């Protein structure tokens, strides 16, 4: 059920005061409207896992494992973005070498 996870998080008892339920809810909700599709998808998963945890469909151990997996996916996405930027720079460098240095300059002289 949509939104079930919010009640679940808000009902979590944190005696240390380290967890701010409203802050966590706000953070996840803001990620759901992020401009990046990858971020939106992972935020939707986190909401779903909280829902499943609240309904007893998954255990705390499962939840922890899924969080670790999302963390791994985020690292993989960062690596993908790094490759995308460098592949573009490589295309530019190759174009300068192949087209401009090799051909265009000869036409200018």
């Amino acid at each position: 059920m949509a939104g079930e996870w919010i009640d679940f998080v808000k009902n979590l008892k944190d005696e240390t005061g380290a967890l701010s339920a409203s802050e966590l809810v706000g953070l996840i909700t803001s990620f759901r409207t992020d401009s990046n599709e990858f971020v939106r998808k992972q935020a939707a998963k986190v909401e779903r896992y909280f829902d499943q945890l609240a309904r007893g469909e998954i255990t705390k151990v499962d939840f922890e494992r899924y969080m670790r997996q999302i963390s791994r996916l985020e690292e993989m996405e960062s690596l993908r973005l790094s490759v995308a930027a460098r592949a573009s720079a490589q295309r530019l460098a190759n174009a300068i070498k192949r087209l401009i240095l090799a051909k265009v300059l000869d036409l200018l002289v």
Partner: protein
Amino acid sequence: MKKHNHYTRAALARLLRVALVFAFFLIPSCTLFHGVSYYDPTTYRNLTDLKPHVMFLYVSFGEQDVDFDAVRYIRLRLAQMHEYEKGKGPLNAETARQIGNIIVMFEDDVQARLSAGMWSETQINNSTENIVDAFDIAIQTERLKNKNE
């Protein structure tokens, strides 16, 4: 006058050539760009071939018995792929690290299945979605690379 124009054009061309050579060496030396390996069809094939094997194995985690042959096969293939990617050197570091992440995720799931027993449909769906996302990111990464033409 015509000769003067010719000299001016030649000087301009020389200047442009120097500027472009400078730019050509400057681009690779900037912090953003330190090269990236070229597209490798073997890497693409390895990833797309193994992905369905892992998906089918995860579905079988909902059954009583664990298919240890399939677990061993996937472990071996992932280890081979990791060595292959690492062997391409530092320009391929991202893909090697991505495959390293897939290995960690896979082992984490296998351990969870072995220690906690049969998976429910929810558990199968969650873990399958995440491992498929991991494979898809690695596949997309390979597709982003330029062809060595």
